[in-house]
């Protein structure tokens, strides 16, 4: 098997992976860096982020405000030492991106402009119109091109981590172009593989977001933390799930029910604020979990707007005027017209909550290190945790920069002291990885298809693991997913050729999603309280006595995961009431 030797191997070349690669290349030009991704870097889903990245920069703001917004927004499930690190590093990272050429939108005097965002007490979201993630990703990718020590392996799909004597020593990956297996021997590995929204049928996530990075770590014995916390973004287009950024509301857009009422005032986020004059941290600038939950209640009251794609609410931006919409929200206008046939300049746009982001992920500490020596993780696939039970919009782009860099520095320090694994051991691990893929490729007499199982998985997730959950629904989902995992072993591929085999790729991605989905539903079943994005109709209150703890789902190849718990790190903010009424301080 062809083998690549690296000091640090990075799986995933989106925002976090690229940031890590650049940090490594800058820290030590002699490091051999292998950047491995199943897609070309600029296809990574970071490109779809629209609104912006949070970092304290203006005189009226403070790190303490950003800390408090994040911890309260996360319903006190964030690790507060990690949040401190995030808010303190955030402005440096955003300025660094500015130096690398990111076309941030500007104030008339040339300083960086910021915009309001949900759950944030001050304006601190740096943005590049409504294509912030796109510009961040391309700025990082283009910047990375000046470092010859970053060796890219585009369109390589990592199938497993190589773990030798309790340490992560590399990975095995399929080169899509040839279908051949490659072995990467590395002193340290960083996973930056993104989220897993595709386990749901209705999501803003691109096709590539199938939880592969999470599954790699999980199967290697690293727990997945807080997986029950799945963020619904309130405003997706009902036809395709395409995201309309929270900046629509930050700029002054409002949400209406079928009677034209700004219904958020009926769900603890009032009183109503003047039209076109958004007030921070209330009404339409409430946090995502609360806004999505309010829609669910409106729907049950019969106040939703019926569309051919199901119930919706209306996002009204007409009062912003054509000039502001074109300047600040050009992509939103373009997509509303293209995919819904509605021009936000003249009509309200139907929207509904849509699966957007995984707060949970690979269990890491504040240094981006996992419990498996040699393995680090950053970005959406990781759970540090700075997002707790509900992420605030514009903290994730910041997170992937801050912790992408952090992962690089930790991995470098580890790689310098780690002794390399033995060649014979790695060869055996690589051969075993190859045999597993070959078995799937060559299997005959299988009775299941990728598309069939995927559909059943998505259906059960939507039915039972959505905005509101119950014991019965989650029990059903857990049983269903256990069944699907069993049936997965009987999949047979239609395509048994080598070159760019997407039938094989989708089968492997389905395997990742099934494992992640089971971690979601088992963790959700075990958490008998309502907190942030995890809402139980049978346990409606937050229960700090029993559940002010992170869940840790531990993989088992045959059975359901075991769910353990770990205390939240609280340094100075004791759990309190999340107040998004206009009366908050």
């Amino acid at each position, binding site marked *: 098997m062809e083998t690549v030797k690296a000091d640090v191997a990075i799986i995933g070349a989106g925002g976090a992976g690229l940031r890590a690669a650049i940090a490594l290349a800058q820290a030590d030009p002699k490091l051999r860096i292998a950047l491995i991704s199943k*897609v*070309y870097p*600029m*296809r*990574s*889903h970071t*490109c*779809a982020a629209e609104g912006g990245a949070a970092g304290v920069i203006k005189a009226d703001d403070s790190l303490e405000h950003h800390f408090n917004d994040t911890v309260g927004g996360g319903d006190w499930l964030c690790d507060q030492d990690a949040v401190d690190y995030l808010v303190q590093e955030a402005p*440096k990272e955003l*300025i*660094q991106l*500015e*130096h*690398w*050429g990111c*076309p*941030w*939108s*500007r104030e*008339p*005097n*040339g*300083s960086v402009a910021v915009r309001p965002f949900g759950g944030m007490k001050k304006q601190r979201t740096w943005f590049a119109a409504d*294509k912030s993630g*796109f*510009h961040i990703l*391309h700025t990082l990718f*283009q*910047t990375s*091109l*000046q470092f010859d020590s970053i060796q890219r392996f*585009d369109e390589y799909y990592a199938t497993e981590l190589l773990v030798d004597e309790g340490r992560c020593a590399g990975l095995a990956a399929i080169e899509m*172009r040839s279908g051949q297996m490659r072995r990467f021997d590395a002193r340290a590995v960083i996973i930056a593989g993104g989220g897993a929204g595709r386990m749901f049928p209705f999501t803003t996530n*691109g*096709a*590539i977001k199938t939880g592969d990075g999470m599954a790699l770590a999980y199967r290697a014995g690293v727990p997945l933390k807080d997986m029950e916390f799945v963020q619904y973004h309130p405003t997706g287009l009902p*036809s*395709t799930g*395409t*995201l309309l950024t929270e900046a629509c509301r930050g700029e002054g857009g409002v949400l209406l029910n079928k009677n034209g009422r700004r219904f958020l005032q009926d769900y603890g986020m009032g009183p109503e604020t003047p039209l076109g004059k958004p007030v921070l941290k209330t009404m339409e600038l409430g946090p995502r979990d609360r806004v999505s939950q309010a829609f669910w209640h409106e729907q049950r009251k019969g106040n939703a707007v019926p569309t*051919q794609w199901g119930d919706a609410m209306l996002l009204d931006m007409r009062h912003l005027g054509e000039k502001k919409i074109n300047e600040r929200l050009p*992509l939103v206008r373009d*997509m509303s017209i*293209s*995919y819904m*046939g509605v021009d936000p300049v003249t009509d309200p746009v139907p929207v509904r909550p849509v699966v957007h982001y995984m707060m949970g992920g690979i269990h890491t500490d504040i240094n981006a290190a996992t419990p498996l020596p040699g393995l680090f993780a950053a970005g959406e696939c990781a759970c540090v945790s700075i997002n707790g039970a509900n992420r605030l919009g514009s903290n994730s782009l910041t997170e992937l920069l801050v912790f992408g860099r952090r992962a690089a520095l930790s991995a470098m320090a580890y790689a310098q002291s780690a002794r390399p694994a033995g060649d014979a051991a790695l060869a055996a691990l690589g051969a075993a990885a190859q045999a597993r893929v070959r078995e799937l490729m060559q299997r005959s007499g299988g009775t299941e*298809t*990728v*598309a069939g199982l995927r559909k059943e998985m998505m259906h059960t997730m939507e039915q039972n693991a959505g905005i509101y959950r119950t014991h019965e629904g989650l029990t059903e989902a857990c049983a269903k997913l256990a069944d699907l995992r069993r049936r997965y072993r009987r999949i047979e*591929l*239609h*395509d048994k*050729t*080598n*070159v*760019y*085999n*997407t*039938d094989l790729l*989708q089968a492997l991605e389905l395997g990742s999603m099934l494992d992640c989905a089971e971690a979601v539903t088992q963790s959700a079943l075990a958490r008998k309280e309502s907190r942030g994005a995890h809402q139980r109709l049978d346990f409606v209150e937050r229960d700090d006595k029993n559940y002010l703890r992170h869940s840790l789902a531990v993989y088992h190849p045959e059975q359901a995961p075991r769910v353990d718990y770990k205390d939240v790190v609280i340094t100075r903010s004791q759990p309190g009431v999340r107040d998004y009424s206009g009366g908050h301080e």
Partner: protein
Amino acid sequence: MGERTVELEVLRYNPETDKEPRFQRYSVKCREEWVVLDALNHVKETQDPTLSYRWSCHMAVCGSCGMMINREPKLACKTFVRNYEGVIRVEPLAHFPIERDLVTVIDDFMDKLKRVRPYIIPKQAKAVADGEYLQTPAELKKFKQYSMCINCMLCYAACPEYGLIPKYVGPAAIALAHRYNQDSRDGGRDQRQEEIAATEGAWECSFVGACSEVCPEHVDPAGAIQQVKIKSTVDWYTEHLMPWLKK
């Protein structure tokens, strides 16, 4: 909105099993709001799992799903089936080798991107602790349009020069170099000139303008290329006729 049956004629080529490309027909019941990508996904899920193509975001920002649709370079995620009558022919992007089916080999493009040095080469290095560079909205506007490229390569498929002379640096890469040249923070223009103002750079362009016509992000690479030509002409005159003006 209703449904209608659409005939897709898709280029198929698997280097392991096919001597040469062929076309395969699929009948797909499409919803009114579907794009060509939705139709391809439907084929892959319900009719033919062997069909290979790239896609991800379904919102025209990841740049993966460029293909020829009725001989025009398009993003499959933004091309509505309702705008077509009769058979819709789907082929891989022109001017790139076929890896398999609708998947092309894009090594040449990736190499060219790197060669134009698409990153800030600062006029004056600045530490992060010293804060951001000031850049007025007017200065931002000078390059913003050229920073919108999603690397979908539709412009390369549309460009007759690139079809004839593969060494030509091409629209997206030249526009990207121009983007950095125009950035008030940058001082690297001289270093980029050897790539983009050379024979195989901007001067290869015969200004057909097809690149700008097909660009889904309105980057206007043709405009960027003409500006590069003008500036390098000024460079030439400055150097040869008025050397005392140089720097």
